[in-house]
């Protein structure tokens, strides 16, 4: 065993943030996987759409724009408290983490409630025709992601409330935020596809 050239890593920290953290990369790749599923769905949507002269099919009334537009603004706004919670976590400001996480969860729940109304206002079911099938699967899958991350945020908040924040939980808050950005980010093109695009076709 040569002592020369040995690398002593004892002075290094026991955690890294951002792209230094394996967990961060894991989350990024999970987002790639889920993003690919959305891309496949969108590609399939257009693949089927090519076969139609009128889209959506004339028998279907596309959903109105008002409520979904308000809802996407709410969703976009919810990014701000999530971001602030992440920043506060890095500085170790527990109070600010709690307030901002709560604000984010309230906005997310509001978004999900309005989403429920959106579903109820669709004039078609997934069984109506292929257009209905696609709208329901795309919006449904996105809603599943939004519910999952809202629940995850609640668990993270619970951990922060019950336990002293240690470094792994700080990382957890950042990762949770990253996933929320993904939920919000994917909705922008999907919103354009589901709500704006069919209304432009008329």
């Amino acid at each position: 065993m040569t002592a020369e050239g040995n690398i002593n890593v004892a002075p290094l920290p026991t955690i890294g943030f951002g792209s230094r953290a394996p967990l961060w990369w894991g989350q990024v790749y999970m987002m790639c996987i889920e993003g690919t599923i959305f891309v496949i769905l969108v590609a399939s949507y257009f693949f089927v759409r090519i076969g139609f002269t009128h889209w959506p099919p004339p028998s279907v009334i596309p959903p109105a724009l008002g409520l979904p537009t308000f809802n996407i603004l709410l969703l976009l706004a919810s990014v701000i408290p999530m971001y602030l919670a992440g920043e506060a976590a890095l500085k170790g400001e527990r109070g600010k983490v709690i307030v901002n996480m709560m604000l984010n969860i309230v906005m997310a729940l509001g978004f999900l409630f309005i989403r429920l109304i959106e579903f109820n206002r669709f004039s078609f079911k997934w069984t109506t025709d292929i257009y209905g099938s696609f709208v329901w699967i795309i919006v449904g899958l996105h809603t599943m992601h939004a519910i999952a991350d809202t629940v995850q945020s609640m668990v993270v908040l619970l951990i922060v409330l019950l336990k002293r924040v240690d470094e792994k939980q700080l990382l957890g808050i950042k990762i949770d935020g990253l996933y929320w950005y993904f939920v919000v980010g994917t909705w922008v093109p999907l919103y354009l596809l589901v709500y704006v695009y069919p209304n432009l076709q008329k």
Partner: protein
Amino acid sequence: MTPTQEAVERGTVDLSALDRSWAPPQGLLGWFRQVNHQNIGKRYIVTAFIFFILGGIEALLMRLQLAQPQNRLLNPDLYNQIFTTHGSTMMFLFAVPVMEGMGVYLVPMMVGTRNVAFPRLNAFGYYMYLFGGLFLYAGVFLHIGPDAGWFAYTPLSGPLYDPGKRTDFWAQMITFTEMSALVVAVELIVTIMKMRAPGMSLNRIPMFVWAMFIQSFMVMFAMPAVMACSGMLLFDRSVGTHFFNPAEGGDPMLWQHIFWFFGHPEVYIIFVPALGMISHIVETFSRRPILGYTALVLSQIATGFIGFGLWVHHMFATGLPQLGESFFTAASMMIAIPTGVQIFCWIATIWTGRPTLKIPLLYIAGFIAIFVIGGLSGVMIASVPLDLQVHDTFFIVAHFHYVLIGGAVFPLLGGIYFWFPKMTGRMMNDAVGTLSFWLTFIGFNITFFPMHILGLHGMPRRVYTYLPQTGWGDLNLLATCGAFILAIGFIVFVLNALSASQNGPAAGSNPWGSSNIEWSTPSPPPHYNFANIPVIRGREPMWTDPEPPVVTGLDDSRREVLVTNTLDAEPEHRYILPGPTIWPFLLAVTTTIGFIGTVFQMWWGVWGAALSFIPLVGWFWPRERPRPDLLESGCGSGGIE
């Protein structure tokens, strides 16, 4: 126990502390709490081989049925179930998982770390794979095995033509196994990016690690496609959506496009890890560094990209626009270029080295012979006119068995023979190994070569029998005889492995005189892989740098590993990996309840998700005692970043 300053600098470690930190959990319950990559990797490999045997039995049953015209061994319905299960088993339950298993076992050791980046996710992936396979076979034994082919073309697999639950079992098995493949892909990519030993810069990464890296990226972008389309098929069948229903504006061709967008990369997902194994075997037994390392890596990356641009060549007979067909013909021929570059690199390595024809190299020689034939028939059917002639005939069956068995199973058997001493600490028997190789090689060619001729004579695939007047009987009988020789070859291999694992001669740490660092640690390796993480100073460290400097200062009293940066593998920070835990198993159980439930009633998806909430919280709930000092020292000043 804190090591003394002197011990830290000299690199001496407290082995008993390492042993305690990384010890696997004991007992029956311990089996379900296991998170060490060596154990999980071995489980993948053993489970995959059990499914391989099941798939092989199905193949023999089909061959028996086809041995003579108008045979009555299997009725058409049973035959349909058996060929569908055979294909699905070999693709989803054997070929991909066994390669993932080799990756899970070897990659952390080859990059010089102690476990994969996400050990609990790794365990979860294994259970999902196991439950998915058991679920499919539960269907088979209950006589509700899938019967629409391993690619389940709509509308045949749709609700109109395939009532009952058969295709639902198949589609849900896909969800299970792809979930498992996806989590392995993510954890291997992150392990390779962030946990390589210091000094293992990109140009020093072992070839098999490169292969798993490329394969994992392919998994990441291909598998979501099949999850999406099998999900859409399930919805069509159970809740009345219309994705593949032309009556309501859907399109059966959509299924073929999405399925083959996954299905073609799938072939390379199986094949690329085999390429990595070949490079190590060729290098070791040629006694010289691999020739054209950069060309090999770049060719594999090119294969990874081009593999996504070939899917339409499975669909030439569906009446697509001619321009599209020409494009995919060109792409299909283009993939021969990177493959050719690799074959020439290996041949040149053997040529310019001092080759010793040990059994693993024998398997590689068999690979080259068989794979080149499969590649040649591949270039033939990449051309549309020829493909239209032989589409859906035994010519295609011959082609893809030549590329899949030749391209993946032969290197895999060579690879297992090669790494077996590392995994078990014992050597397999060479005489028996030679016997099993020749039985396999000869049996394979007797089975599948006649199928080329049968296909050119027009014998269609997926028929349970044929008329005596066709004159196909003799060649079919020959193929059946070959299949039994092939099966005996595999059995001899398995028996050799089983007996060697008990009584084989001890291997020592580096029995083949190989070049990479997994051979520096004892065989079988300790649970922590390396007593000291080595510092890498070359591409063939065991040959050029047998006594490297080491990493010191990792805390051995817990599961601590080193995280390095992606390009140059410079140390960034230490990282504590989780220990044994039951939650991944419980999460797999609740997910399984949800998945199986949705086959019968969609609301089970909701119940399954609700049930999974409990193990998920258990999984993420912090176990370590909080460290209040952090808020003052590290994070308070932003010092961590």
